[in-house]
């Protein structure tokens, strides 16, 4: 089980790095989807054999939503909006990667020192979650493209979720489902909004830096 767990965590870290270093939107979306699937599998890494039905359902829903529905939605948006496939960064890709590595180091350092109660199943868990949260925030801040911001938000959520899974916090099934529903609707509404924006404003091309008419 630990093997699987650590493997999944490494996968998540790698997807993060991939997103930091890539210039193609498609890569982002796929990496995000992969991360979502990996996250879903995390549910199955708990001790004590096969999990309860509720958790299985949760994992399946997560997998479907994050690994299937979201990428579809995003790809559709890109196609219909005729967005350029390049993400235009504020921070260059090499720099992003270097910052990512530094963040990973920092996350590992902090993760090792957090006075966590109870048994931690892997030393990688907390750093991974923190790193993922950081990556999410970084993607939102350092990229121009509006789609990346949706993705950044997703990655951020993944990070938070990793924490949840990692620490076996006992939120109940209903709440977890509620959270998932919220995230699903959230992304859905974001995409719809982007869609509308694209239709309303001709030359926007999902460049969120051009969405700055409202200011003081």
């Amino acid at each position, binding site marked *: 089980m630990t093997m699987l767990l650590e493997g999944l965590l490494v996968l998540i870290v790698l997807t993060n790095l991939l997103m930091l270093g890539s210039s193609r939107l498609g890569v982002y979306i796929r990496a995000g989807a992969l991360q979502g699937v990996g996250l879903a599998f995390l549910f199955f890494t708990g001790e004590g054999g096969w999990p309860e039905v509720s958790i299985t359902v949760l994992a399946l829903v997560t997998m479907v939503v994050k690994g299937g529905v979201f990428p579809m939605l995003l790809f559709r948006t890109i196609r219909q909006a005729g967005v350029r496939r390049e993400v235009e960064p*504020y921070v260059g890709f090499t720099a992003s990667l270097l910052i990512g590595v530094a963040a990973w180091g920092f996350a590992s350092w902090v993760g090792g020192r957090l006075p966590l109660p109870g048994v931690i199943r892997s030393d990688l868990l907390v750093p991974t979650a923190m790193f993922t949260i950081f990556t999410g*925030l970084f993607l*939102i*801040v*350092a*990229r*121009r493209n509006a789609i990346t*911001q949706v993705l950044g938000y997703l990655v951020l959520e993944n990070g938070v979720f990793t924490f949840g899974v990692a620490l076996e916090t006992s939120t109940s099934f209903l709440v977890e489902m509620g959270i998932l529903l919220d995230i699903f609707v959230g992304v859905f509404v974001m995409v719809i909004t982007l869609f509308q924006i694209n239709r309303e404003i001709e030359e926007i091309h999902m460049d*969120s*830096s051009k*969405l*700055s*008419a*409202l*200011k*003081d």
Partner: protein
Amino acid sequence: MSHAVLIAAAILLPLVGGLLGRLVGFHSGLARLTAAAGGVLGGLAGLGLGGDILWNGGQAIVNWPWFATGYGLTLAVDPLSAFFLLPVSVLTALAAVYGVAYLGHSHGGSSGAGHGAIDPANVGLFAGLLQTGMVLVLLVQDALGFLFSWELMSIAAFFVIALDDGQAENRSAAWTYLVATHIGSAFLILFFLFLGHRAGGLTFTDLARVTLSGQAQALLFVAALCGFGAKAGFVPLHVWLPDAHPAAPSHISAVMSGVMIKTGIYGLLRALTFLGAPPAWWGWVLVIIGFTSGILGMVFALAQRDLKRLLAYSSVENIGIVTLGMGIGLFGVATGQTTMGVLGLAGSLLHVLNHAMFKGVLFLGAGALVQGTGTRDLDHLGGLSRRMPGAAGSFLVGAVAICGLPPLNGFVSEFLIYLAAFHGLLGGQGFALLPSFLVIAGLALIGGLAAACFTNVYGIAFLGEPRTRAAGEVGASPGLMTLGMSGLALACVLLAIALPVVLPGLAPVLAPLLPIDGPTLLLELLRAGAPLRGVLALGALLLLLVGFLAFVRGRLLAGREVGETPTWDCGYAAPTARMSYTGSSFTQPLNDLFEPVRTGTVERPALVGLFPAPGRMATHPGDSFVGHLFTPLFTGAETLFQRLRWVQSGRLQVYVLYIAVTLLVLLGWNLW
């Protein structure tokens, strides 16, 4: 009638009258009468209440339950409140009488200076609220109630100013007033909350019991000075006054200028009763404030052509005189010179009373002029004393009184302040003499300037020939307006006679401000007031002499040839009114002299060639505190704020970055 009933009447009747007047607002006359009846009855109740407490001594206390909330509102009339209740009641009542006719006739009057656009019912409502607010301010006995009443009063005045909002200058005036009063209130809130925290309670009894460290005392004094000073109109916090008074209907200007700004003085005195023994520097500060307010008020007043602005600046000057008295009095108290303290404070208080009366007359008179001629511009008036004898006579009384000339009431209070300063000369040494010299020199200069200012006003507006057609066609003011004006003028005369006699009656009023016991205080007042008998005697002598000389003159001229001619104009054959001296010319020498402290702009026509085209010259008197202090301050702040606006850049990325940074900072702050 019991005190409780009187208190309730004084507070509620004006408001009820105003509300009822608003309800019957569809009928202008009825609305005006109803509102005025409330004001007059409330004023009478207040007068009875204040008079009773001052005459018979003691206190009137009544507790009003605050519905079912468990809070009680304690209202009490102690001698200090009672004293301030007198001018408030008299002036508001007479102004209400005046208002009935004033508002009625200004309906549909000429645009511009008249208040044609405003609904009398609204004026009545807010005038009633203003009166209620002022009485409440004087009567409440706890900090919360005080702040509440204070704001009520301020807001009522704001609405009166803002009612005629068709003109940009009036809106600007309303804004200035609102801002000034709000800033003042902020200081008051600071004052009361800080003091209340130290005292462990918010009732005045609690506050009066507190002992304070020197530092706290100093801080509180400054807060009270700023808070109450903004209302009273201490320079440089006076800037709202000259804007607000022209914007309000004249009888409300009279109330605002005559008594509302005095609540600032009341508040300051009340605050002093909480703060304990005054250090000498308070006296210094007040004397300096009074000195600057008095002189600058007059300097600015001289430059005005707008009659009501001029009167507003004159209020600043009179507040300066009041403050001079208070300052020299406090200085006396602080340095142990009791006579000086008693005289200064007594003079200050009496000047409050006197100023309410004569400034009331002057504003009501100004209202009569404005209503009759449709202009507030002095240089467009002239020769009105023939056409409005009632207004002219009352105005003259007010003008003589406000210049502090004997034998009217203004002299009595200024005399006491002078006397306090002179007493200070006897007891002090070195620098301790300086406040006295400041007061004496200040009052002397103020007196001279005031004489210049009010000979100008009376001479230009009422004497000579009418300068415009409107001024030439005015009719006499309606009876109720004349009643209001002459009532106040009569009050000025009566006070001149009465004040020297009843001066010892001020003892209970002054008692909380002085560290001496009642009998000593009474003795001091009796002793210090003795010279007033000389003043009274000479006043009587003066009147006798006037009578005698008039008689002699009459006898001499009887049976002799008394001719009538045009005014001597060096033989020029066709004089017109346009040739007569205008107010602007009259005050020009003084204005030129004070140019450096008073900004303003002059438009001069460029006259070129041998036969230049007709040109106009116009002067726009400014206020150096507006031009050099407040405008730069406010625009500076605005510019600074504009520079900080990059925060809201419109970029989503930056916004999310804010979130991340805030998180990091807060984590760092809270966990390390």
